[in-house]
């Protein structure tokens, strides 16, 4: 029995969610293979043993979506891998479902617990935008898990990483009909999905010109910025910052909501945050019922004070 983890790197270092995925894989079996879209060099690889990686599949040849997919399928069969673990991301949602169909492995997304192996595989998954959980039973010897963020504590391992070289094979696939024309990167250093701390603001800020203080606070805290739906609908902030039922669903360690009343649709996007701080001048704002810490006060007084205190 062995486990394969799909890993993501950012500027050469392993992302937090990938470290969590490696830890998760070790709770299933300690024979943990790893794979990533871009090859990582030797020194960097060796350091991944402390996160629980046993063997890294290093592919030779030039990477394309097509040839990598086919080679991954072959490796999964050759190395008798039963379980595949993905940290959740847009890209991995696609890869995981393609693998699920190709390998006939059942797939569960929004996973929030380690599996129990009884007659079936039993796991917990988040549903109804985080308003409920479900026990999921999987009737198979194999499974693909796509993990939500921050569901496991990282512990350290004492493994030395083996490297298995595999060469790419080329095939035709449906991606032959998709042509990338342009990629625009989102401005800002910290991506909303990766951020440990998120500062989010709503209509209470009165206008887009008042986001300077939000950005300054985010900078002091090393946080990413987000917003509520009315704010992105009004064009005050870009759509990719919208968190909520129909926007991004995030689960940072700390979520600070400023001037957001906390409608149920907004909560659906942020209710898996570990700690929620609400700053609002309306003491009756529904968000206070779901917060860990609350400050009742005017954002225009509180935020500058917050920034000064951090400085």
């Amino acid at each position: 029995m062995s486990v394969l983890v799909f890993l993501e790197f950012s500027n050469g270092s392993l992302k937090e969610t990938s470290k969590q995925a490696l830890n998760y894989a070790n709770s299933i079996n300690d024979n943990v293979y790893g794979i990533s879209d871009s090859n990582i060099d030797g020194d960097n690889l060796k350091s991944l043993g402390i996160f629980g990686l046993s063997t890294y599949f290093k592919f030779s040849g030039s990477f394309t979506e097509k040839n990598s997919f086919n080679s991954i399928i072959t490796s999964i069969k050759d190395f008798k891998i039963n379980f595949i673990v993905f940290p959740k991301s847009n890209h991995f949602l696609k890869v995981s479902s393609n693998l699920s169909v190709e390998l006939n492995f059942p797939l569960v997304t929004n996973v929030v617990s380690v599996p129990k192996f009884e007659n079936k595989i039993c796991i917990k998954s988040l549903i109804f935008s985080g308003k409920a959980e479900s026990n999921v039973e999987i009737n198979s010897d194999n499974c693909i898990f796509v993990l939500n963020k921050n569901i496991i504590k990282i512990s350290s391992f004492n493994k030395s990483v083996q490297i298995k070289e595999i060469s790419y094979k080329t095939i035709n696939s449906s991606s032959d009909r998709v042509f990338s024309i342009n990629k625009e990167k989102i401005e800002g250093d910290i991506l909303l999905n990766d951020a440990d701390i998120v500062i989010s603001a709503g209509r209470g800020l009165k206008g887009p010109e008042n986001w300077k203080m939000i950005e300054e606070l985010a900078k002091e805290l090393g946080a990413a910025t987000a917003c509520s739906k009315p704010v992105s609908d009004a064009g005050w902030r870009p759509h990719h910052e919208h968190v909520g039922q129909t926007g991004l669903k995030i689960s940072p360690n700390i979520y600070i909501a400023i001037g957001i009343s906390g409608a149920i649709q907004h909560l659906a996007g942020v209710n898996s945050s570990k700690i929620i701080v609400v700053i609002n001048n309306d003491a009756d704002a529904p968000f206070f019922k779901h917060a860990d810490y609350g400050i009742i006060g005017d954002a225009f007084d509180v935020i500058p004070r917050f920034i000064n205190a951090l400085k």
Partner: protein
Amino acid sequence: MNILICISCVPDTTSKISFTDNDTKFNSEGVQYIVGPYEDYALARAVELKEKDNSIHISVLNVGLANNDPLLRKALAVGADDAFRINIFPNNSLHVANQIASFIKENNFDLILMGKESIDFNSAQVHYLTGSILNIPSLSPVTELNLNLKDQKILIKKEIDDGIETLEVVLPAILGCQEPIAEWKIPNMRGIMNARIKPLKVIESFADESKVNFSKFIIPEKKENIKIIDENNINELIKELKLKNL
């Protein structure tokens, strides 16, 4: 040009979520059902495209039971030409994808639009799974869609993990849609009247074996009581957050 919109019928976004039958079934009592908000965007975009080019034919499809028919009628009122319902309770993502894929194999569609995810089970997989089963491109979440019918191509914008990608895709293709692809459309009186006579066909389900079973539902415990911090004492908040490893 034939467009298929696959819709989910889900509890309204403001619904209180609860379960019955020993927490094994969703409690639909007093719950208002809606077309999934993401599919509503997809449908609205298709109708916008049809307004420009009347040769476009729009079909809607739902995998579900008869209580979803009023929502299929609503989609017809918004502007779809015909509706189909595969008569089976949707068990899990692969189950739904298999039903949709079997339907598409028997019919001819150039473009299949879905939401990026349903708002009940949030798996965000059905479009990708359907694409894999049929071996046609599947892309999500798509925020902009334009047609190039002459060359059987579409031009789309799609969110990627660190930005937005513009892509050209040769049809047929499947898209998982998300705002701001279009503005939601509200059916007008003429649409509602017309919808009554548009065809709604019920189809028996296709054979399928499910391995994933949602066996029991749990409402997570509520947070402990909030700690209110005085607005003049911001340092206390910073101290509290530092204790929690800020």
